[in-house]
């Protein structure tokens, strides 16, 4: 440690900043999570299992994770296209569109929920025509899906954008002059170069959608077993003073999210390892 400290003398403050980092992370993240686990330990394994295997819990988890993943995938595809247009082309209003991408970041989620609900309700601007086609969005799982897409899009765009900006257009010209078609250039050159960023964007959008509460509950209709998301079920259990039930669901969400994020992270590492730093 003293040797390390001696070497670090040119950049002072290691001890202080490291200490602050550890205590801050503990207070803000680690201790609350540990508390959550401890709380769930009050349940016997049997009780824990009963809570989780109840139909309502399983359905809520399925709705949350399933729709979040689907929304993240849609965001991945649409986000990539938006990034491509924003980075590669110059058109009037480009900076405005670029700013609009951040709206879901900045907007209070409840406001977004109310706005989406009004829009997609049966008498709304979009809900009306869709209802005529027999598609019901508000107060159904489709509404949850729409809200999750809305809040996830900036995560994909903002993660991929800087990487695409750094990608030299010369490599596309090189691919073209070597005989690659446009499609081959995209598949073999551009997408592999963007893969780590795309995976990060996917993971972030997914994590956000799983945890989303505010915008979803307005549009979801919140019918148990159909359009009830896991975070809402937690709130319901809390309001019923069934704290153990609430923590059990929370722990499961935590573990599943962690496993998924971890898996995406490994995948991203693997993709990154094929593109060593310059």
């Amino acid at each position, binding site marked *: 440690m003293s040797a390390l400290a001696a070497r670090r003398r040119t950049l002072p403050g290691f001890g202080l900043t490291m200490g602050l980092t550890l205590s801050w992370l503990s207070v803000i993240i680690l201790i609350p999570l540990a508390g959550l686990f401890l709380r769930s330990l009050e349940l016997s394994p049997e009780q824990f299992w009963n809570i989780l295997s109840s139909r309502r819990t399983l359905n809520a988890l399925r709705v949350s994770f399933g729709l979040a993943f689907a929304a993240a995938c849609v965001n991945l595809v649409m986000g990539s296209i938006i990034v491509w247009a924003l980075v590669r082309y110059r058109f009037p209003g480009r900076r405005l569109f670029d700013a609009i991408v951040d709206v879901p970041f900045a907007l209070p989620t409840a406001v977004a929920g109310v706005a989406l609900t009004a829009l997609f309700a049966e008498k709304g601007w979009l809900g009306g025509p869709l209802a005529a086609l027999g598609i019901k969005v508000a107060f159904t799982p489709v509404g949850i899906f729409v809200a999750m897409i809305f809040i996830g899009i900036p995560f994909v765009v903002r993660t991929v954008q800087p990487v695409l900006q750094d990608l030299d257009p010369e*490599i596309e*010209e*090189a*691919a073209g002059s*070597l005989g*690659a078609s446009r499609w*081959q250039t995209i598949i073999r050159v551009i997408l*592999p*170069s963007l893969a780590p960023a795309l995976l990060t964007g996917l993971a972030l959008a997914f994590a956000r959608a799983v945890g989303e509460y505010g915008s979803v509950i307005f549009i979801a209709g919140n019918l148990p077993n159909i359009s009830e998301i896991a975070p809402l079920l937690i709130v319901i259990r809390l309001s019923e003073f069934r704290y153990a039930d609430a923590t059990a669901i929370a722990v499961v969400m935590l573990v599943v999210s962690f496993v998924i994020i971890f898996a995406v992270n490994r995948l991203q590492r693997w993709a990154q390892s094929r*593109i060593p730093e310059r």
Partner: protein
Amino acid sequence: MTIEVKNLVKKFGSFKALDGVDLKVDNGELLALLGPSGSGKTTLLRIIAGLDWPDAGDVSFNGEDALAQGARERHVGFVFQHYALFRHMTVFENVAFGLRVQPRAVRKDEATIRTRVKELLDLVQLDWLADRYPSQLSGGQRQRIALARALAIEPRILLLDEPFGALDAKVRKELRRWLRSLHHEINVTSIFVTHDQEEALEVANRVVVMDKGRIEQIGSPDDVYESPATAFVHGFIGESIELPIQVEGGVIRLGDRPLRLAADGLAPGASKLFVRRHDMLVGPPGSGAFEGAIRHVRNFGPVQRAEVALSGGETIEIDAPRDKELRAGDTIGLEPRRYRIFAGA
């Protein structure tokens, strides 16, 4: 493959990058496009490659219209200044890229591709790097891999855009010689762009000097150095002394001083006199066309370089052999062994 470029014009906004360029490149030639930045040389190269399109003019390969084809169909190998290697692919896959993206009908089988890539890596003497990634290579190695990649498609023409521009001086010199011997070996019609006159003169069979979107002179390295066609070429290639002179009634004046130089056949008016630094011979005061006082002297490799204040007011630098005795403060006479005068200011 011969290349013919006719009356090529290209504008970027109000800037004329190419302003009526005509050029013929013979089969198997190694041609240098030389000029300062903004002279249009890279634009010309990119138009030949199909990476840019002209506003007017024709480009033909072996007499057939090349502008009708995109970069993909032209079968032109292009080497970029900053290599443009695919960084998520190994060196091997980079070189194999052009072979793997061929249409299925003509694509070679995996074994043939492997053999071909191996041959190319041998050709650029980097077969031992096949499994590395571009980021693990030095600049010189990257550029050789970029060249191998371009050669993989058996290009009809090889185009190199400032191929050594991003490399340090020593590597650059090595690669120059190497490029020349490589060209000798594969003998494909090649054009390279450079702003480095030494590079152009050392590597190319023929040099095209460009300025402001126009071709100033086309000739062998000896031609452009020994008999520059324009004031620009004289000033750009080799180290020249440039003096503003006035031709009047058969007399050449520098400032208000008449020079002892013949003015036969020169148009009257403002002109420019060009002399190579080493063509200014030093003599005793009163001899030669010019007179001046030595300001200071520095040794410079095989020569000594003296700064001389001419009595006309101009200050010039001359190169003299090391055994000539020059001292700061001395007054000397200067006689240009060879010089050129170009009309116009």
